[in-house]
């Protein structure tokens, strides 16, 4: 048993932390409040140059190939400074990884290096629809074969980075007659394809700097070669990719939770009320103890899931456990941290209200906590039957 990071993993953690503190943290509050896409994209490009856009992508495609453990550690460090940047990086990585997993050699060569190098500002993951959220298999976006083309029609929702993503992984129904989940395929759609319409921006509670849009397909014609992986096999792929993405979101939540508690704890050691530092009050001490204990447990669950993924073992159950626990622990930590700072926690003068807004979605996107529990329970019941 060895719970130490390797030398490379420690250097990656240090690099991510120093970059995030120097480049992301100073602008995070401003980017939350006002739209400064230029600054946001400039930071994404810097991160691409350092290798953050292809963390688990092989070196031959321009990736960094750092492994799942270092991926988790890196996302946590980025999220400590800016959750919106972290989710954008996480989703771009997911798109690069799905292309690497099921794309043809041509598709890999064509798109992965562009994501990794930052030639594409980001990648888009278009799965969710207005009527198909947790129940992704109930999607209605259609892809119909027509001569040498596929023609896409339908609308996707909550697509991160949509206005500046260079390539979209899009799931659509190719066989409406098939049993549920058996007639869905995955396609690659380049930005700028006629009929690919970037719709309205979602007005969100948090993670404001990360653009989240509706994406519509209006007779969007793509080449036959844009099909990725096997025909009708897309849903299984989406579910598989989400398992790895869940480690990313859990790691992101952990980063926000740590940022919140670190800030509030420093504050508690200085803030004097009733003639003493509030960190001397047991009520505050228990908040600190509980939050850090839960965040440490979250970290260990994440490390375990990432380690299993890295070893090539099954990790779906562990990834869901880690995502469920880390996101909920981080939500509790942000809530407690805000409470520790009292009125200042609620004020925009301090970052706590931003952390609390940013962390809220982590137990919703890429599989709600309820869906994680379903996956965990199903996996346990299946293996014990």
């Amino acid at each position, binding site marked *: 048993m060895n719970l130490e990071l390797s*030398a*490379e993993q*420690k*250097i*990656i953690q*240090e*690099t991510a932390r*120093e*970059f995030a503190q120097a480049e992301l943290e100073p602008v995070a509050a401003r980017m939350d409040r006002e739209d400064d896409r230029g600054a946001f994209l400039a930071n994404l490009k810097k991160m691409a*140059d*350092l*290798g*953050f856009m292809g*963390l688990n992508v092989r*070196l031959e495609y321009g*990736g*960094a*190939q*750092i492994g799942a453990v*270092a991926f988790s550690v*890196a996302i946590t460090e980025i999220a400590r400074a800016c959750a919106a940047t972290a989710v954008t990086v996480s989703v771009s990585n997911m798109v690069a990884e799905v292309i690497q997993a099921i794309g043809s050699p041509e598709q890999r060569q064509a798109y992965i290096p562009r994501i990794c190098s930052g030639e594409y500002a980001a990648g888009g993951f278009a799965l969710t629809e207005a009527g198909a959220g947790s129940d992704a298999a109930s999607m209605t976006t259609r892809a119909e074969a027509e001569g040498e083309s596929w023609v896409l029609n339908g609308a996707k929702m909550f697509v991160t980075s949509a206005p500046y993503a260079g390539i979209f992984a899009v799931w659509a129904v190719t066989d409406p007659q098939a049993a549920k989940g058996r007639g869905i395929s995955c396609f690659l759609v380049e930005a700028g394809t006629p009929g690919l319409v970037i719709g309205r921006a979602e007005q969100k509670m948090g993670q404001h700097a990360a653009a989240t849009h509706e994406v519509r397909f209006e007779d969007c014609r793509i080449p036959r070669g844009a099909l990725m992986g096997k025909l009708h096999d897309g849903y299984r792929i989406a579910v598989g990719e989400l398992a790895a993405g869940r480690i990313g979101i859990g790691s992101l939540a952990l980063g926000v939770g740590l940022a919140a508690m670190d800030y509030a704890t420093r504050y508690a050691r200085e803030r004097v009320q009733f003639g003493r530092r509030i960190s001397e009050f047991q009520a505050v001490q228990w908040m600190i103890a509980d939050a850090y204990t839960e965040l440490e447990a979250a970290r260990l669950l994440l490390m375990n899931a990432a380690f299993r993924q890295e070893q090539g073992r099954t990790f779906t159950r562990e990834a869901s456990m880690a995502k469920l626990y880390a996101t909920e622990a981080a939500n509790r930590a942000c809530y407690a941290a805000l409470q520790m700072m009292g009125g200042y926690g609620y004020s925009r003068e301090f970052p706590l209200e931003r952390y609390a807004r940013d962390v809220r979605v982590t137990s919703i996107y890429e599989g709600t906590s309820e869906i994680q529990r379903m996956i965990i329970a199903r996996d346990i019941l299946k293996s014990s039957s």
Partner: protein
Amino acid sequence: MKILVCIKQVPDMESRFKVNRDGTWIEEQDLAFRMNEYDEFAVEQAVQTKEQLGTDVDVTVLSLGPGRVTEALKKALAMGCDRAVHIQDEASAQKEPWQIAGLIAAYARGQAYDLVFTGLQSQDRGSAQVGVLLAELLGMVCVTTVIDFALKGTSVSVSRELEGGLKAAVQFDLPAVVTCQLGLNTPRYPTLPNIMKARQKELLVVPAADLLLEQALTATEKMYPPARKEGGLVLEGEIDDLADRLLAVLKEKTTVLRQG
């Protein structure tokens, strides 16, 4: 051209330090370590020099210390050094500058380095002696506290930072040892692919016991935290006069008003 960069791994300066049991150094067990900041300038300058001159430059990064220092060496390799030498010494914290410089010189002698970069000082011990002593032992020119570096052929022009905001322009020929000061450059972040690729680079381990150890010239008798100061300095009087006196104190006792 052969360049040597000497780096030290030091505790993260944000750590909470505790004096160790025998009272001569700090308790290292629970500390996180990182590359000495001044040595990062040295690594960066070596890599920039390599980039400036092209492929005919070989940069060796060297560190002396226990097993953990391979992390700092690997970071330097990821930043662009070509090979690493780890002088393995579990008791490096008990050695004083003359001995450290002696061990480095014992390895470096005969390697025909043209240029040696190292930090002005370490952030932990802060003796600022190792670079100078190494130059002496290797019979090389030594120029300290460098904040600007330009190499042309075998001739080097540097700017040195002196006390009180003064600077000195110095010219010298290689071979030489240069100690690097804050302001010389901005160390790059190692890219993640380079961190992974650095695993393929040579990392030579040389046990310190295989090298000649010099006699210690100094000994640390006692490490202790500074006594707690009471109250600080209180200035009283007329506003105009107060401002002048405050300015004088800031100029004399602190670095806040020094021009970079």
